[in-house]
C-alpha cells in the first residue's frame, strides 16, 4: 500500500519528463529525419558531411577540445590548492570562483571584447609600457579564451569536490609505505579524482562544442562553429529540418559523453556539488 502510493508521487515528474524532455527530443528526430513534404530522408543528417558543415564541426571539435584541455590544466592545480586549504575557508573560497557566474554570461564575454579590442584596455596598457600589441580578437584564440573563461568554474568545482572526498588516511598510508609525492599523486590522488574529472570534462566540452554566442562576440562572426550553423538554420534560414538533422549528429557526441560519465559515475549522482 505504502509503496504504491509513494510510487504515485513520481507521476507528476514522469508526465513532465515525457512532455518536456522525451517528446521534444522526438520532434527533433522527426524533423531531422524528414524533408519539407514529411517524407523520410537521411539528407539532413548526411548534410553534416558537406564541406562547410564538416569544416564547422571540425573547428568546433578542435576549439572545444583545446579549451577543455586548457580548463583541465588550469583547474586541477587550482582545485588541489583549494582542497588543501583551511576547512573554514572552504565554502567562501569556492563561492569566490562561482561568483563570476552571477554577472551575466553575455556581459562577461562582452567585457572580454572590450579588453581585447585593438584599442581595448589590454592594448592601451601594453602600449603604455611600449610593448607590442596583442591582436587576438576575432581569431580562434579569442574564442578559446572566451570558452575557458566561461566554463572554467565547471571544471574546478567537480574536481574540487572529488578531491575533498578523498580520505587523507589513504594518502598518508601511501606515503608511509614509502611512496613519494609524485607517486602518491599518480597512484592515489589522480585515480580517485577521476569521477570529478569526467564530470568536469563533460560540463566544459558540451557547452564549448555547441556554443554560438562566444564565436559571435569574440570571433567577429568570422569563424563558423557548428552551434552557429544550427542556430542560423533555425533563426534565419528557416530550415528546421536541416537544423534538426545537424542537431542529431551533435547529439551523438553528447551520447558518447553521457556513456563515458555513466561508466565512471555509477551512482548517477554526478560530482557537481
Amino acid at each position, binding site marked *: 500500500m505504502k509503496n504504491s502510493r509513494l510510487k*504515485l508521487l513520481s*507521476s*507528476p515528474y514522469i*508526465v513532465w519528463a515525457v512532455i518536456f524532455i522525451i517528446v521534444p527530443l522526438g520532434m527533433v528526430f522527426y524533423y531531422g529525419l524528414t524533408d519539407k513534404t514529411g517524407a523520410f530522408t537521411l539528407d539532413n543528417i548526411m548534410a553534416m558531411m558537406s564541406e*562547410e558543415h564538416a569544416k564547422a564541426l571540425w573547428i568546433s571539435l578542435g576549439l572545444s577540445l583545446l579549451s577543455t584541455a586548457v580548463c583541465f590544466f588550469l583547474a586541477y592545480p587550482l582545485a588541489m590548492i583549494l582542497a588543501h586549504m583551511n576547512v573554514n575557508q572552504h565554502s567562501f573560497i569556492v563561492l569566490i570562483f562561482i561568483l563570476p557566474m552571477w554577472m551575466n554570461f553575455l556581459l562577461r564575454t562582452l567585457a572580454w571584447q572590450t579588453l581585447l579590442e585593438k*584599442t581595448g584596455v589590454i592594448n592601451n596598457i601594453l602600449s603604455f609600457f611600449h610593448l607590442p600589441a596583442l591582436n587576438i580578437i*576575432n581569431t580562434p584564440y579569442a574564442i578559446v579564451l572566451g570558452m575557458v573563461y566561461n566554463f572554467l568554474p565547471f571544471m574546478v568545482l567537480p574536481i574540487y569536490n572529488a578531491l575533498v572526498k578523498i580520505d587523507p588516511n589513504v594518502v598518508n598510508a601511501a606515503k608511509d609505505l614509502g611512496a613519494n609525492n609524485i607517486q602518491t599523486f599518480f597512484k592515489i590522488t589522480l585515480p580517485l579524482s577521476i569521477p570529478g574529472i569526467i564530470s568536469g570534462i563533460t560540463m566544459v566540452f558540451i557547452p564549448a562544442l555547441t556554443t554560438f554566442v562566444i564565436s559571435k562576440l569574440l570571433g567577429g562572426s568570422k569563424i563558423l562553429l557548428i552551434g552557429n550553423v544550427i542556430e542560423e538554420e*533555425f533563426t534565419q534560414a528557416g530550415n528546421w529540418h536541416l537544423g534538426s538533422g545537424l542537431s542529431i549528429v551533435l547529439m551523438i557526441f553528447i551520447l558518447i559523453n553521457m556513456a563515458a560519465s555513466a561508466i565512471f559515475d555509477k551512482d548517477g549522482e554526478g560530482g557537481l556539488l
Partner: protein
Amino acid sequence: MKKIFLLSVCSAILLSLAACGNSSSGENGEVIVYNWGEYLDPEAIALFEEETGIKVIYDEFETNEIMYPKVEAGATEYDVICPSDYMIQKMLENDLLAELNFDNLPNAKANIGASYWEQSKEFDPENKYSVPYCWGTVGILYNKTMVDGTIDSWSVLWDEKYKDNILMQDSVRDAFMVGLKLNGFSMNSVDAGELETAKNSLIEQKPLVQAYVVDQVRDKMIGNEAAIGVIYSGEAIYTQRENPDLEYVIPKEGTNVWIDSWVIPKNAPNKENGEKFIDFMCRPEIALMNFEYITYSTPNDAARALIEDDDIRNSTIAFPDLSQYQNLETFQYLGEDADRLYNDLWKEIKSE
C-alpha cells in the same frame, strides 16, 4: 483514479502557465510592435501610450532574415512589423500580410512623399500593405585619419592596406550586394555564375575583414576600432556627430536603395491598434522626433520640413539626390530556391 486526477492537475497547471504572460495590457488593449534595434525614439512610444491608453509591447530584430521565421512560425504574434522592401515582397507572396485600411491612416496618406509611395510599388504594387517608415542607402563609412585620400569604390574593401581594419555586414543580402556590385552585376542576380564570382570575391576578402557585424559597425567606427565599414546611411549622421573624423560615401559601382515600411501581419491580434500605431508614427512631429533620435532618412515630407537645422534638412547623406548616382537598385525577393542558394553560398564564405 488518482493517477488520472494527478494527470489532470498537471495539465491544468501547464495550460495556465502557457496562458499567462498575455494577461497584462493597457486600458485600451495593447499593440505588439516588432522593429529593428534602435529604430524608434522610446519617447514616441511613451507619448503614444499616454495618448491612446494602448500598451506597447516592443520587440526588436537585427536582420530581416531573423524576423521572417519568427513571423512565419506564428508562435509569436505581432501587430506591427517594420521589414525592408524585399522582405515585404516575400511576406506578401507567402500571404503573411493583412491589407491596411487607409481610412485609419490619414497621417500616412497626407505626410508621406509621393515619390516614396511610387518607390514602394516595386514590392507592394498597389500600395495596399505597407507604409514607408525610413529609407536610405548602403555605403562605406571611413575614418579620414586612417585612410589615404578619398574613397569612392567598393574595391577599397579589397585593399590589402586595410587588412584587419574592415567591417563587413553580417547579413546575407547586404554582403552579397557588395560582392555583386563590385563585379558589376545586379544585386538581385540569381545567375549561378555571377553569384559564384561574388562568392569568390567575398572569400578573397575574408582575410582582410576584421569582423562581420550588423549594428556594431556604429560603435566600432566611433571608437576608431576600424578604418572602413559597410553601413546604412542612417547611421552616418549619428556616427559623425560622435566622431567628426568619419565620412560616408555611396560607391560609384552603385548600391542598395532601401525602404523599411510598416506592415501588419495577417495573424495580428490587434489590427486596429496596429493601424493607430502606424498612423501615430506618421504624424509630422512624431516622425521628426524619431528622425532626430535615429537619424535615418524619413519619407515623411511634412516632418522633413520641420527640421530646423538647414545642414541636416539639406544633408546629402540623409536626403541624397538619387539621380546623381548610377546603378542604384532595390532588393527584390528572389524566390525560395534563390534564397537557399544565397544561404548556402553565404555559409561557404563564413565557414572558409
